[in-house]
């Protein structure tokens, strides 16, 4: 087995060789600008882009004209929030979102708030990280113009009841934006059934290239309008100027096509691997806690807290396995994951959390190796943990007066 092992597929994914193969002709040979309307080079590029648009639209049950290319999901989130607030400011300026959204949504909302352009309601989530649709309904005011709730969380994999939220948005005539970056290509997404008006996602999370994203913008019922945040040549129906990155778009299209064909089987395979990983670790080690929803979660996500050991020190002992931790020992604030904190997970357990993200190219052998190494390292670190020692002696750690620093 080759080391290191990549188990951080929520951060990014390796590109599928089939995607690269589709992209290659569009660098040197077919280099045209898709906006060049008067020669063969341009036509060729335009045709490739339009084909990709269709492949992408098909995966989410949209029309290809509703696909707006951006540089990635962060830009899509920015464009959705800022574009809607700017376009509909006469109607209202209130946004409803949740505390566990990706920073691209939260920081954009914060920025609009700071500049006095919007007021924002941040809905709290339940202990599994799920937004309650009724909370969305209650938060709606006559000034609400946008609801922005993610499809699936990037840390804990919890899947939100998006369809119910979409229904409420429709009922109230409010636009619904969904950051679906972690969900598209992993679980079925249907913008019609889910009542989504704007949706962000990117290629590099689904075995496509980095640097390309999409904002789905509904064209009919209702026809959504957004104010462009990038001025220039008026590309993408005037919503996002800039020469289209043809090779990246071709890759995005092919990545979506593969997901569309293989998602069902792949989802089942990944869920089985994830369950094996979860059982292998949690059965062998006491005091391990699953973060996120036990069933309503992405098939490839697993987030576990290992009591009495700190996440970063765990990762340090697992140099040959690429993972992510909710510990923020490296951050200037020393604050652990805000997502886990929003679930009500204690700071101590948030510091002790590890996120496993399985992907298309992981194997059972890698999973078994990871189980073995996790058990080894957690056991070793617990042996040198004063907290574990105290717990074993029967000390209630919650009753101890700690000197916070």
């Amino acid at each position, binding site marked *: 087995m080759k080391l290191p092992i990549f188990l951080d597929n929520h951060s990014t994914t390796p590109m599928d060789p089939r995607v690269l193969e589709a992209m290659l002709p569009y660098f040197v040979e077919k280099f045209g600008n898709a906006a060049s309307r008067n020669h063969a080079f341009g036509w060729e590029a335009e045709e490739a882009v339009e084909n990709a648009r269709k492949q992408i639209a098909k995966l989410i049950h949209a029309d290809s004209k509703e696909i707006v290319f951006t540089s990635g999901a962060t830009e899509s989130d920015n464009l959705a929030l800022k574009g809607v607030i700017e376009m509909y400011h006469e109607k209202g300026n209130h946004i409803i979102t949740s505390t566990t959204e990706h920073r691209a949504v939260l920081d954009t909302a914060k920025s609009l708030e700071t500049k006095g352009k919007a007021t924002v309601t941040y809905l709290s989530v339940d202990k599994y990280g799920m937004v309650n649709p009724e909370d969305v309904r209650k938060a709606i005011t006559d000034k609400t113009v946008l609801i922005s709730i993610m499809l699936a969380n990037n840390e804990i994999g919890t899947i939100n009841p998006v369809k119910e939220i979409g229904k409420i948005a429709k009922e109230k005539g409010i636009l619904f934006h969904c950051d679906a970056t972690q969900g598209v290509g992993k679980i079925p997404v249907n913008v019609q059934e889910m009542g989504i008006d704007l949706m962000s996602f990117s290629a590099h999370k689904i075995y496509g290239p980095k640097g390309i994203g999409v904002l789905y913008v509904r064209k009919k019922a209702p026809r959504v309008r957004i104010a462009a945040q990038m001025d220039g040549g008026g590309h993408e129906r005037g919503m996002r100027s800039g020469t289209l990155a043809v090779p990246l778009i071709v890759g995005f299209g092919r990545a979506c096509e593969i997901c569309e064909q293989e998602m069902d089987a792949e989802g089942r395979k990944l869920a089985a691997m994830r369950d094996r990983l979860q059982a292998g670790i949690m059965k062998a080690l006491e005091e391990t806690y699953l973060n996120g929803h036990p069933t309503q979660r992405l098939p490839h996500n697993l987030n576990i807290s290992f009591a*009495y050991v700190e996440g*970063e020190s765990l990762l340090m002992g697992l140099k040959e396995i690429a993972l992510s931790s909710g*510990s923020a020992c*490296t951050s200037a604030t*020393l604050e652990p994951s805000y997502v886990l904190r929003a679930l009500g997970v204690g*700071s101590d357990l948030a510091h002790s959390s590890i996120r496993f993200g399985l992907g298309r190219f992981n194997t059972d052998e890698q999973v078994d190796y990871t189980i073995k190494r996790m058990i080894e390292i957690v056991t070793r670190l617990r042996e*040198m943990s004063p907290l574990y020692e105290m717990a074993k002696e029967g000390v209630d750690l919650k009753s101890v007066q700690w*000197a916070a*620093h």
Partner: protein
Amino acid sequence: MAYSEKVVDHYNNPRNVGSFKKDEKGVGTGMVGAPECGDVMKLQIKVEGERIVDAKFKTFGCGSAIASSSLATEWLKGKTIDEAQTIKNTDIVQELNLPPVKIHCSVLAEDAIKAALADYKKKAETETK
């Protein structure tokens, strides 16, 4: 983030992991930090006469916190109480090449040393009374 070689070495081969009985004669215990902050260090010294003859630690925290406390135990052994008082967090930062975001680990280690020494002195006073 890349760790310095010395941090990796202390993490992989921590010196003096373990515990003394808290009520044992000549033992001073320092426990600093909080689980909520992601760092808790327990540092213990065993004193004979004026000299620290042994030191042990247990740490919940990142690799730099483990390395800082491991190094502290190494430095404490053989020192007198007065000499031990002079160990500064900046010495630990220098020895382990800690980056700015990890300086708090060295501060915690210094606090742990001070706490262990204070505990020892307090115990010694009550024992002589």
